């Protein structure tokens, strides 16, 4: 279930390095928030939408991914019509739609490992200060992906144990043991990480 939102492909955006996508994303958000001009927002919206659809994603999938955010944005637009002039609502709405589309395009064309490489670079100043190790961050990330299925399995086991003892299945009595048992694993996992030399101090 934890498969990335990255989409295999060889589009123009796929080939760009991560940084060449993230920097424009940041620049675009600043620019759009500074500008109150409808034509500017509209242009940004069209370009972002074009980019998003150019990454080789099916219409259905494309819509599924941004559908929820779009719905909330349109909903807000409707509410805003009561408070604000139409043109301003247009600016606000197009701005958010443009940013969401651009961001979704970046997400769809960047692999987890490309992100991780970039994060390693971003963290290097902090690493020099001794605050955080990039290797620890990628280790932590791997741990999450590794243990989410275990947590589901354990949830299932605790639920079944409730049933077997004839107890009602309530979130309250499940969440306590689930957290305790999960966190208790931390001792063994930590020992294993140290024993296998996964961290270079």
């Amino acid at each position, binding site marked *: 279930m934890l498969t*990335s*939102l990255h989409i295999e492909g060889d589009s123009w955006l796929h080939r760009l390095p991560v940084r060449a996508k993230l920097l424009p994303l940041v620049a675009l958000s600043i620019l759009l928030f500074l500008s109150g001009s409808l034509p500017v927002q509209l242009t940004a919206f069209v370009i972002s939408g074009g980019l998003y659809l150019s990454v080789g994603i099916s219409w259905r999938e494309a819509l599924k*991914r941004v559908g929820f*955010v779009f719905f909330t944005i349109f909903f*807000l637009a409707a509410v*805003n019509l009561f408070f604000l002039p139409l043109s301003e609502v247009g600016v606000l709405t197009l701005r*958010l739609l443009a940013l969401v589309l651009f961001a979704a395009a970046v997400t769809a064309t960047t692999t987890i490992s490309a992100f991780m490489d970039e994060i390693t670079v971003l963290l290097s100043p902090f690493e020099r200060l001794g605050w955080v190790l990039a290797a620890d961050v990628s280790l932590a*990330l791997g741990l999450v992906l590794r243990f989410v299925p275990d947590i589901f399995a354990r949830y299932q086991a605790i639920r079944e144990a409730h049933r077997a003892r004839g107890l009602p299945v309530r979130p309250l009595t499940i969440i*306590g043991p689930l957290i*305790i048992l999960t966190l208790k694993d931390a001792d063994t996992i930590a020992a294993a990480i140290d024993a296998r030399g996964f961290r270079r101090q």
Partner: protein
Amino acid sequence: MNTRDLVLIALFAAIVVALGLIPPITLGFIPVPITAQSMGVMLAGCILGAKRGALAFLLFLLLVAIGLPVLSGGRGGLAVFAGPSGGFILGWVVATFVTGLIAQRFVREGQPELRQFIGFFLASIIGGIVVLYAIGMPWVSAITGTPLLAVATGSLAFLPGDLLKAAIATLAARAVFAGYPLLHVRA
């Protein structure tokens, strides 16, 4: 940071991912969903404490940012930060930190059970509701242009759910504190 803390942080982030399996509820009148994941804020603060709790959520946000569908309803990716929920989501880190600070300050081993319940409940309310709304609502207003008052009125709809979450988190945190205390172990 020792390895055990690193693992605790990762495991808690995984628990928050698991909470995302409970589907979100979308209300008609506010563009931010009701989600079980915000209970993670209260749980992480009350169980792991300020520092490790906030780091668990920072790690969770990293998962969102790099495009894993870990938000409730299978959402993820950078687009989420650009939407109306963005402020709440970023606020989770701060809110967890505050929840943790309060819990660490007011809950001790050996106190009467009731005191511990009250401590966890207050921490959850102040961190997981007051602080979180104080970040999330202005954000919605700022990026959507909807007046703050209107946003605040709409957000009232979260209150019953969030109070219930605080109650569940309090009971769960107390159970963990009794069964496997971590709150005061030095991070």
